[in-house]
């Protein structure tokens, strides 16, 4: 299958390893990945901060760049939810067929074992836009359970928001910090040395909190664990 990668502006700039890992997993499974270099941002930040007028041209641009592909994959549930949920209202034209990585693997390609090995104690945080926005269900966990040598530990209160919420983290910094503190407590309670999720935005927030506390717990994008071969 020929799959276009929408890496997202955030991964491209701040978490390129999530994009690299997405390419590696799909190529290992025998798929051709293309990267349309004209891509920039889906406009989520603008739309969710109240600037629908500025988001609309970005949405139209996105539709032009990705319109010609049968399938687009993205290692970001949040940006996929933006395209699927908000584009119909913003652009009113054919919305590109975009899948979140675990959704593409499990629901479209029917793969649960991607042949990964990762010998660490890992806890998984289901991000809000993946869990409730896209209804990913247990697709990410099914992929993780098939990783060799992984020790997967359940995150308490997993379905509670980590407090990132885009510009929420800036506009309501104190409430965001309170939510982050509770999330970090849950992560640390698991005794995991890696916290993973399907959104780099939430991971920058959680990981930034863990590093500030010098907690010695890493954050890794789900794709990076799936790409790992030991």
């Amino acid at each position, binding site marked *: 299958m020929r799959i276009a990668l929408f890496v997202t502006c955030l991964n491209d*700039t701040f978490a390129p390893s999530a994009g690299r890992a997405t390419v590696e997993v799909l190529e290992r499974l025998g798929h051709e990945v293309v990267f349309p270099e004209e891509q920039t941002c889906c406009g989520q930040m603008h739309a969710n901060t109240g600037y629908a007028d500025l988001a609309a041209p970005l949405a139209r641009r996105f539709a032009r760049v990705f319109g010609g592909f049968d399938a687009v994959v993205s290692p970001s549930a949040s940006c996929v939810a933006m395209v699927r949920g908000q584009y119909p209202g913003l652009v009113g034209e054919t919305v590109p067929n975009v899948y979140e990585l675990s959704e593409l693997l499990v629901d479209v390609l029917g793969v649960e074992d991607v042949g990964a090995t990762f010998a660490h104690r890992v806890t998984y945080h289901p991000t809000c836009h993946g869990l409730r926005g896209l209804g990913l269900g247990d697709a990410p966990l099914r992929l993780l359970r098939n990783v060799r040598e992984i020790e997967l530990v359940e995150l308490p209160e997993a379905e509670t928001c980590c407090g990132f919420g885009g*510009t929420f983290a800036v506009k309501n910094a104190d*409430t965001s910090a309170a939510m982050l503190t509770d999330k970090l407590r849950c992560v640390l309670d698991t005794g995991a040395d890696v916290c993973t999720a399907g959104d780099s935005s939430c991971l920058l927030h959680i990981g930034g909190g863990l590093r500030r506390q010098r907690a010695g717990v890493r954050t890794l994008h789900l794709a990076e664990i799936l790409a790992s071969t030991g």
Partner: protein
Amino acid sequence: MSFPDAARVELDKAQQRRNLRKATTTIRAKRAAVVAEVPDWEPLRDEGARVKDEALHDLATHLERLEVAVTAAGGTVHWARDAAEANALVARLTRAAGSDEIIKVKSMATDEIGLNAALAAEGITAHETDLAELIVALAGDRPSHILVPAIHRNRAEIRDLFEAELGETGLSTDPAALTAAARRHLRERFLRVKVGVSGANFAVAETGTVCVVESEGNGRMCTTLPDTLITVMGIEKVIPRHADLATMLTLLPRSSTGERMNPYTSLWTGVTPGDGPRDFHLILLDNGRTATLADPVGRDALRCIRCSACLNSCPVYERAGGHAYGNTYPGPIGAILAPQLAELRDHTALPWASSLCGACYEVCPVKIDIPTILVHLRSRVVREQGAPPSERLAMEAMARVFASRRRYEAAQRGARLAGLAAHLPGPLRTWSGVREPPQAPRRTFRDWWRSR
């Protein structure tokens, strides 16, 4: 005080944080358990939304049918454009009944219009009879939850309050003992006061039947003992048919208290000679509802049946508490109702009082897509009230960057340089208060892609 400032104050209240966490965690689990028992819960939610939409999309017709039915059953219907008109009506009707006090069923609509304060200014005393509303009133406090107004208080605090305000001594913190103390205080009023005031959970256009749902029975005392009953009802509470109550009364208690059925459901249709009040007045309150109905996205908020499942599920509400919203309706529903029922300019921060996590939408029994309405209201605030100039400039600058691959790639190189700085500039500084700032790696993804 705007939400972020108020939340900063509330977040530091350790006892309140603990009380809220305990209460919302308990009620979430109860709700989840009783909802899981209903095999057709999702179709039931669809039906709940459909019933409310049917009434809202032809509201005038349904309200006029309600008026005809109530009048035919011996009641009197009044129409109030706003809080002032509704409050004046209640005062006039109370005086006409020869009383200078009222007993009240717990009601959000009368909180919304500030009825108690308005009556006090007219020399009329309002007695709250709901246990939690009584606690809030005795403490000179404000409700912080739609269903559990004193959710921010724990039993020890309530015991202390009753000992100080009700002349009780040696009370335990046992709920039964606290309730008995409140009962001693309330019973005399139930028997003495001649005018009762209630809100309404539902009113049936077809039959003129008004419905109040409660847990304590104090509400039923107020709707049956007095000679005169005055109901203040938001116009969005009307539903088309009596049979629709079956849907709504299945959805409401499971969503709100996590019970299969609430202990007291009172239904009355006009007046019945020799049984209950001799006079029944129904005040139909607009107070911003017609204006809300004019917004094709925002109007879905009027489906709300005040169950408060969205509050109990909201991670922002659980931490910041109800008072931070500065409004009768707190939590996610308050963040979309307050800016619409009142003036948008008075509540410009509320649409941002959410991380858009979607937990509220998932539990809403009438499927109000709260995150979508929040985003819609954010756009309205930016468009109609204007954003801070620095924010608008930053957003426009970023939109220009994202509109061009060349500018985007140049900005990535800039981010890499800025990433070397220890702290973020400007408003982004709040990020680095509790988190290390993100570092832009040496190579972007596209650098790697090109180098393969």
